[in-house]
C-alpha cells in the first residue's frame, strides 16, 4: 500500500483525516463512524469521498461503539470517532464488553484529548482517557508526538489486529520526527541522548520535554528524552534499559498523573531503585481558558516546570 506520511499541516487532526482518507482509499474494509463531531474529528473527509463507508451515529457514542463491534464482526475495520472524553468515558462499557473481551478489530480515535479543547472546559477535557484505556486487557494505546507520527499511527492501527485507541490533540504540534523516521508500535524512541536524567514523554509533551532538556543542558544537566508513542503495550524492557544508570527519571504527559504514562513507567520500574517524578495534571479536572498554552501553564505542563522537577529530583534523590 502506498502510504503518504508527508504532511503540510502540523495539526494532528488534519494529519489524521488525511491518513484516514488515504487508508480508506486503499483498504476497502475501512469504515468510519462518528458521533456528530465529524468536522472536528476530521472523519468527514471519509464521508465526503466514500459516503457508503461512513456512518453518522448521532450523539450516541455507546451505539457507535457497539455498532462498530458489529461491523468488525462483519469483517470491516471500523474507526470510531469523538472527543476523547466521550468516546472513552461514555462508550467505555461497550468498548470493554463488546470490543475488548472479543478482541475485535475496532479502532477508537479520541480527538481533542487532554486540555487541548481549551474553551469548552472540564466536561470536554479528558485527563483520564489513557488511564481508562490502559487498564483494559487487549487494548493498544497510541499517543503520537507530531503529525508524521499521527499518520504512521493510523497505518499501524489498521495493520494491528485487535482494539486500538489513538489519542489526538486538537491543536498544532511542532514536527519532531520526519516522514522517514521509523515508527514501531510497542517501542520507545530516544529523541535526545543524555547521561544524567531520563525524561519519558508522550504526545504533546515530547516537544515540551525536548525544550526542557535544552534548558537543562544550559544548567550542565544532561537529560535524555524518550518519546513514548505506545503507552500500551509499554516497552518495559526499553524503559528499564533507558533508565539504567540514570540518577532519576521524569515522566511528562498532558494527562492525570494517575493511571497514564507516569503510572505505566512506574509499574515498569517497580523493582528498580531509581527515583521517578511524574509531571502531569495533578489529579484535577480541567477548566476553560482562552488558549491551550494558558492551561498548560496553569497545570504546570511547561518546560520550566519540567526543569524544576528535574532539579528537585536530582537534589532530593527520591529518598526521604
Amino acid at each position: 500500500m502506498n502510504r503518504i506520511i508527508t504532511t503540510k499541516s502540523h495539526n494532528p487532526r488534519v494529519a489524521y483525516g488525511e491518513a484516514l482518507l488515504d487508508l480508506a482509499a486503499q483498504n476497502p474494509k475501512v469504515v468510519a463512524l462518528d458521533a456528530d463531531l465529524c468536522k472536528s474529528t476530521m472523519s468527514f473527509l471519509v464521508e465526503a469521498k466514500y459516503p457508503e463507508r461512513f456512518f453518522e451515529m448521532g450523539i450516541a457514542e455507546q451505539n457507535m461503539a457497539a455498532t462498530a463491534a458489529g461491523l468488525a464482526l462483519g469483517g470491516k475495520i471500523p474507526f470510531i470517532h469523538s472527543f476523547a472524553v466521550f468516546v472513552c468515558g461514555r462508550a467505555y462499557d461497550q468498548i470493554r464488553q463488546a470490543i475488548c473481551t472479543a478482541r475485535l478489530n475496532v479502532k477508537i480515535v479520541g480527538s481533542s484529548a487532554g486540555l487541548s479543547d481549551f474553551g469548552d472546559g472540564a466536561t470536554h477535557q479528558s485527563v483520564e482517557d489513557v488511564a481508562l484505556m490502559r487498564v483494559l486487557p487487549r487494548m493498544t494505546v497510541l499517543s503520537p508526538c507530531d503529525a508524521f507520527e499521527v499518520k504512521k499511527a493510523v497505518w499501524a492501527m489498521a495493520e494491528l489486529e485487535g482494539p486500538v485507541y489513538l489519542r489526538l490533540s486538537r491543536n498544532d504540534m511542532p514536527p519532531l520526527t520526519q516522514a522517514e523516521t521509523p515508527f514501531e508500535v510497542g517501542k520507545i524512541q530516544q529523541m535526545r541522548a543524555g547521561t544524567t536524567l531520563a525524561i519519558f514523554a508522550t504526545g504533546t509533551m515530547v516537544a515540551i520535554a525536548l525544550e526542557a532538556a535544552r534548558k537543562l543542558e544550559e544548567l550542565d544537566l544532561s537529560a535524555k528524552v524518550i518519546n513514548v508513542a505506545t503507552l500500551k503495550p509499554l516497552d518495559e524492557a526499553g524503559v528499564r534499559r533507558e533508565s539504567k544508570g540514570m540518577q532519576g527519571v521524569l515522566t511528562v504527559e498532558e494527562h492525570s498523573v494517575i493511571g497514564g504514562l507516569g503510572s505505566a513507567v512506574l509499574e515498569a520500574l517497580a523493582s528498580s531503585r531509581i527515583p521517578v517524578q511524574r509531571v502531569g495534571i495533578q489529579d484535577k479536572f480541567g477548566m476553560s481558558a482562552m488558549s491551550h498554552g494558558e492551561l498548560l501553564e496553569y497545570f504546570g505542563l511547561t518546560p520550566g516546570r519540567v526543569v524544576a522537577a528535574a532539579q528537585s529530583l536530582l537534589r532530593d534523590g527520591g529518598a526521604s
Partner: protein
Amino acid sequence: MTEAVPNRVIYGRTLVELGQGNPRIVVLDADVPKSTNTSQFREAFPDRFFNCGVAEQNMICIAAGFAASGKIAFASTFAVFASMRACEQVRTSVAYPRLNVKIVATNAGLDNAGDGVTHQGIEDLAIMRSIPNLTVLSPSDPVTTRKAVLAIAQREGPAYMRLGRNPSPVLYEENVEFEIGKMIPLRNGDDLAIIATGNMVHQALIAADSLAGQGIQARVLDCHTIKPVDKAAILDAARTTRGIITAEDHNVVGGLGGAVCEVLSELCPARVKRVGLKDCFATSARDYRELLAHFQMDAAAIQAAAYELCGSKSAHIPSRSSARRSTP
C-alpha cells in the same frame, strides 16, 4: 459475629441502620437489589428506595440530582457496570461537581466467578482512581465493611466502594479503628510487607502464616482506602522491609499496585511485586478459589512473590528504622 458473611449483606444491613438514623439517606439500584442487598433498605424504607431498572447512567445522574437536592444518595449495581456503563456520568455528574453520592458496587473482581468476564469488574479501582474528587474504598471483611459504609455516609463528597460476592471471613474485632485513608496493620513483620485490599487481605494472611513457618516474617496491611492511599504506611513499609507485595482482586495495571508504585517511586524507590490479574480477562468458574488459583492471585501466588523478593540477590534498601530487623 464470627461466621463468614458476604460483605454485601453487611452493606445492606448498614444501609438500614443509616436509614433509621438519617432521613436524608436515599438508595438507588439498577435492577439488582437482591444481589447488592439494597433490597434490605427497600423493605425498611420503600419510599426512599428507587429501582432505576437496567439503566445505570440514568441511575447515577438521578443520584446526583438527589444529592444536589440535599440528600445522601447511595447508588448500587455490579462493579463492572457502575464503573464502566456509567463511567462518564460518575465523572461528570458526580465527581466533577463533588456531589454527595456514594456508589457502592458489589460482585467486584473474580469473586463474581460464575457470570464470567462481562460481569467481573477487574478494572474498577483503576478507573475510579483516575477520576479527581472521588474517594475509593475496598474493605476486606464484614466488620470493616460496616465501618466503611458509615464512614462514607458521614464524609461529604463523592465516594466509590467495591465489595465482593462471596462470604468473607471476619478479620477484626468490632472495636477495630477504622479511618478512611489509614491502612490497618494486621500482622507485624520486617522481612517484607504485603499490602492487600478486599478479598486479598485474607489471602495475604494465609500466605503470611505459611511464610512464617519458613522463617519469613511478613507484615500484612489492609489497604481499605485506595484513594487517598495511605502514603505513610507505604513509605514505612519501603523503609523497614526488603520489599513490598501488593495483592488485589483486580488488574495489576492501575489499581492498588499502581497506587503503591506511584507513591514509592517518587518518594522512596523500593522493590514491588504486584499480585493480581495480569492484564487479561479471566473466565467463568464454579468456584472463586479456582479462579484465584488459576490466575495466580491466591495465597500461594503471594508466597511465590515473597520468595522472589526474599531470594533476590539485590542489595537491601538501607533501613531508616532503628528497629532490629529479623533475618530469615
